[in-house]
């Protein structure tokens, strides 16, 4: 049994969270380059150039890429041979508290959805735990902006709706909400499982690099097809009209019930901020 101190988790996560908010990372920068080359609208190209310049300023001056530094979402894969000395959930929240205070990140979390009082430190995080083999802890952090989250949707389709129904739902969701979600977007799709499983999968997918395809060739091809079709919607960068609405479509799947076809679409903005650390 390997022992990891709770404080190590806190320190490592705080670093990842600050860095993700300042530095959008090489993969998104590559996606912006490709978007600039592909975009046909002059206004759209101007928006992409602003986004690139914004990324440069944020990284160089160590300031947040976007003022909405998001809900802290953490996928924690905990090896079953790890013993955490202390409280792991508290340690994760302490890491978020430290990052959002020391990194001058915005605190956007309210303690209650109706009474709406700010918690003051951007905690609690939304934490998804997974127990996995091994003696390590892997934390994947995402800073999920509220504007794009608000445009996300889930549907319990009928099995008869099939693949065409799934495509239609994804196209309709992006068509209706894409302009408000700070395009160019990364689209996370969760397909299968139960109601809540599809949503968690869609979040996982939205936090994946737009260059990593689903390992199943069928879904990899579907990701490519959906990207092409979504870019024909005409929404364009910042929603001002154009040929680049999405940078990528990522699909994650899970087995599902014989009467069900759950599909969730989690929309991520161009401020697709995420990072990982393994302890």
């Amino acid at each position, binding site marked *: 049994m390997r022992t990891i101190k709770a404080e190590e988790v806190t320190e490592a996560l705080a670093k990842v969270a600050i860095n993700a908010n300042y530095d959008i990372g090489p993969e998104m920068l590559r996606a912006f380059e490709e978007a600039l080359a592909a975009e046909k*609208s002059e206004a759209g190209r101007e928006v992409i150039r602003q986004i690139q310049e*914004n990324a440069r300023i944020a990284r160089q001056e160590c*300031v947040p890429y*976007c003022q909405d530094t998001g809900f802290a979402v953490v996928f924690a894969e905990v090896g079953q041979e790890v013993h955490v000395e202390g409280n792991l959930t508290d340690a994760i929240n302490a890491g978020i508290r430290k990052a959002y205070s020391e990194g001058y*990140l*915005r605190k956007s979390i309210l303690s209650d959805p109706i009474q709406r009082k700010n918690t003051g430190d951007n905690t609690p995080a939304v934490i998804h735990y997974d127990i996995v083999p091994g003696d390590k802890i892997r934390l994947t952090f995402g800073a999920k902006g509220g504007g794009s989250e608000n445009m996300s949707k889930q549907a319990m389709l009928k099995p008869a709706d099939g693949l065409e129904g799934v495509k239609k739902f994804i196209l309709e969701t992006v068509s209706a909400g894409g302009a408000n979600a*700070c395009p160019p977007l990364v689209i996370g799709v969760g397909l299968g499982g139960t109601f809540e499983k599809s949503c968690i999968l869609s979040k996982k997918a939205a936090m994946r690099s737009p260059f990593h395809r689903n390992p199943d060739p069928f879904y990899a091809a579907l990701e490519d097809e959906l990207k092409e079709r979504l870019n024909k919607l005409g929404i364009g960068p*910042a929603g*001002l009209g154009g040929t680049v609405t999405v940078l990528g479509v990522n699909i994650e799947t899970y087995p599902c019930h014989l009467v069900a076809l759950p599909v969730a679409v989690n929309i991520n903005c161009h401020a697709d901020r995420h990072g990982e650390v393994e302890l």
Partner: protein
Amino acid sequence: MAEHKLKTPLSDADVQKLRIGDTVRLSGTIYTARDAAHKRMIEGLDKGQPLPFDIKGSLIYYVGPSPTKPGAVIGSAGPTTAYRMDPYAPRLMEIGMKGMIAKGKRSEAVKEAMQKHKVVYLGATGGAAALIAKCIKKCDIIAYEDLGPEAVRRLEVEEMPLIVVGDAYGGDLYIEGRKQYEVR
């Protein structure tokens, strides 16, 4: 698509020159307000209380900046999505607001009120928050400090890069721009 350099406050004539797709470089004084501040301003008006700033000819920027680092004017300060302010905006247009700076689609009621009261909706690039902060030269909290990032701020801006996304003639770039590139 014309390019305009505008200075605040805005007159009806300033607004009537603008058409969707035009670019604007805005300089002068603007005010920030978003969800909670709008709610409070409207509740105040209902009780006969004055607004925390002179609304005549003013522009409101829908933004909740990130905290200011030591030595900086303001934190990152990109626009928030506008539709959440739709229930409040027409009321402010009635009493003299001339422009809104934000991102995203507006309701029909807002677009009608913009035509009636000659108001422009200027789009800032969502997420370009570090870039936009560079145009902000001064920032003072003038009301509702308890709201934190949602407090009302008076900003001095220089050459803020904006695009006309809604004009006083009913034009909506989110609809018209998309039409040009949508492949059915």
